[in-house]
């Protein structure tokens, strides 16, 4: 059920796409494809991870990613426990290490961690025995999002090799961009970034990553346009004068999209500020694959849960 059996997936933890080879990424996507079909069945459940315990440790607010991981685990019959920041002990001054030790005592098979500090999954993994999956850490990576973006593009374009993918917005503070840039380029795409310089991180330009002067330049000839969510400032750091000025200069609208390829895909990791990073008609228009992204998110997360446990099925004949 996992496509080509030749590839050995050797990652115990999923920290980010930086640790993944092209073959790893393709293998995860192939696995996700095989799981996607489950979501279309009338009984959306397989016993693959029966008896396994998945702890969703979300120490930063998130509804969509947590829900997606939870659905993924449940579709594979795993038991899931959600520990959110409001119910966790983080507020009481308990450290992530204390929390991890307590969770460890419950013998989880996987911990899925969302945390506001970059590198928190690495820290957690040093203190627990089970696999850790990064569900977004600070401004570092959000690997499952990067993978579902790749899966979505592949479904429409069949390949990433040679594609031009524009990413517009706050690249500096986006963990989604962190994973996307690595994943897209590793699969052969050319990435073109656009945004005011306050949003472009130091040293990002490379052979495969170009920084455009304008949105028009980034979008011209693009096969995919990804817009990122914008915040006016972070940590008292002024980044843009106003959302209004941003929308005028850098928002993705119909006008600028005429420079993209006719079959351009419009993507957004959500939630969208409609009218800021993207005009409503673009977000809901025919090029938009934003809802495909959500659907593929569940499949990719099922694949990750499956693969970090060694890709071993609890019982035979799960596919029926």
């Amino acid at each position, binding site marked *: 059920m996992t496509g080509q059996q030749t590839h050995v997936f050797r990652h115990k933890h999923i920290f980010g796409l930086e640790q993944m080879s092209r073959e790893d990424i393709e293998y995860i996507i192939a696995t996700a494809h095989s799981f996607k079909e489950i979501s279309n069945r009338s009984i959306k459940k397989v016993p693959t991870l029966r008896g396994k315990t998945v702890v969703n440790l979300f120490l930063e607010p998130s509804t969509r990613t947590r829900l997606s991981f939870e659905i993924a685990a449940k579709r594979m019959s795993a038991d899931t426990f959600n520990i959110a920041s409001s119910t966790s002990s983080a507020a009481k001054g308990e450290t992530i290490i204390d929390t991890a030790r307590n969770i460890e005592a419950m013998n989880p098979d996987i911990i899925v961690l969302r945390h506001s500090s*970059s590198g928190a999954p690495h820290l957690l993994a040093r203190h627990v025995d089970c696999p850790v999956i990064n569900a977004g850490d600070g401004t*570092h990576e959000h690997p499952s999002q990067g993978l579902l973006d790749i899966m979505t593009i592949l479904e429409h374009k069949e390949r990433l090799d040679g594609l031009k993918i524009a990413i517009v917005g706050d690249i500096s503070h986006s963990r989604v961009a962190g994973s996307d840039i690595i994943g897209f380029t590793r699969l052969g795409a050319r990435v073109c970034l656009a945004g005011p310089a306050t949003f472009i991180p*130091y040293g990002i330009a490379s052979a495969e990553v170009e920084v455009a002067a304008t949105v028009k330049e980034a979008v011209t000839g693009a096969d995919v346009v990804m817009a990122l969510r914008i915040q006016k400032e972070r*940590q008292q750091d002024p980044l843009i004068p106003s959302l209004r000025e941003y929308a005028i200069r850098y928002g993705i609208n119909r006008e600028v999209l005429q420079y993209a390829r006719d079959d351009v895909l419009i993507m957004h990791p959500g939630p969208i500020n409609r009218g800021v990073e993207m005009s409503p008609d673009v977000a809901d228009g025919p090029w938009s694959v934003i809802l495909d992204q959500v659907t593929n998110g569940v499949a990719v997360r099922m694949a990750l849960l499956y693969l970090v446990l060694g890709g071993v099925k609890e019982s035979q004949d799960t596919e029926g």
Partner: protein
Amino acid sequence: MSVVIIVDNGRIIDPLHGVDSHGELWICDGRIVAAGSVPADGAQRFDAEGCWVVPGLIDMHVHLREPGEEYKETIVSGTRAAAAGGFTGVACMPNTKPVNDCGSVTTFILRTAEQGAARVYPVGAVSKGSAGGELAEYAEMKEAGIVAVSDDGRPVMNSQLMRRALEYAGSHGLPIISHPEDDALSRNGSMHEGFVSTRLGLRGIPAAAEAIMVYREIALAELTGTRMHLAHISTAASVDLIRRAKDRGIGVTAETAPHYFSLTDEAVRGYNTNAKMNPPLRSEIDRRVIIEALGDGTFDAIATDHAPHSVLEKDIEFDLAANGIIGLETALPLALALVRDGSLSVGRLVELLSVNPARILGVAGGSLAIGSPADVTVIDPRKRFVFAEETIVSKSRNSPFLGRELTGKAVLTVCGGRITHAELMPN
């Protein structure tokens, strides 16, 4: 009866007096004496064959954590770590709890240091509580025994306060030690701003955050005609500014730390909090320029910025982890690596680690002249050892060099005629 120590067969290096020759060094009752000038019977004799005999090393920038954070380090444990690393004197920064901003804290430090294994030179605060507001009482602290003033740990952001501090410190013969950092540029940053910080998603501290303040300090030193010492310089841009200021005869001196010439920001990968310090580890270009500046005299001193922390501050999220690493027990081998690769002469090494720190702080030491206090370090430049957790003398373990094999070590440390560390056996 006199206490006599004789170090035989060593290579005696005393750059202040142009000495670099094989011979014996005699110590009697805490002072260096002429060979043969006192009776040798009952003397402790050490065979220093293959070793260098140098003036006791002085680390002009350490954090001993006492009073207030004794679980990280105490004056006694910190000076023992110093002795193990070959140091006979350390200047301790005032960012303790309470801050060393008055005579009574200075007195406490010096009294506690009597039980220690190295000379302790307290540095007083520039401002009360190091809060950057009012001047601390320099005259009172000087009387109690401080050798310099600094608000180290944080920059003095108010330029007028720094100007007045320089002038006032000058009136009391105290040098100012600046921690050059523009904290608006560095705020919330946890590593050097560069490709690695982008990849790790960690907020960067640009090199300019240091260079901007280095330039301000140079301008203020020129304005006031007062001496300013620049602590823990980490960037090529700062080196360039310091070099030009020295060429123009401005009274600035500068130090860098062993980690800035031994590691780069690549050491942070994997979110290693033992590679987190302020200023942060910089780029390879910065590292190379720092080494060059050690050789050409732009830097006056190597200081460790020894900053002990426990797992409570280090085994946490990278952005929340405390800045700083221990350095007393690794400084010498890391600096010796520069001698081995030809970047530094042995004499220059001794200037950086002993002669110049003594001169900048205006304290004894840095000399093996007859009659000097017997602060002596014997170095075996070929001794190899693994810097392992269990061998660390400091109370804390926060070092990026854990597990590294290092070459070169202090095998005998003598402070005021007292043996504070010995790996050589007397015969």
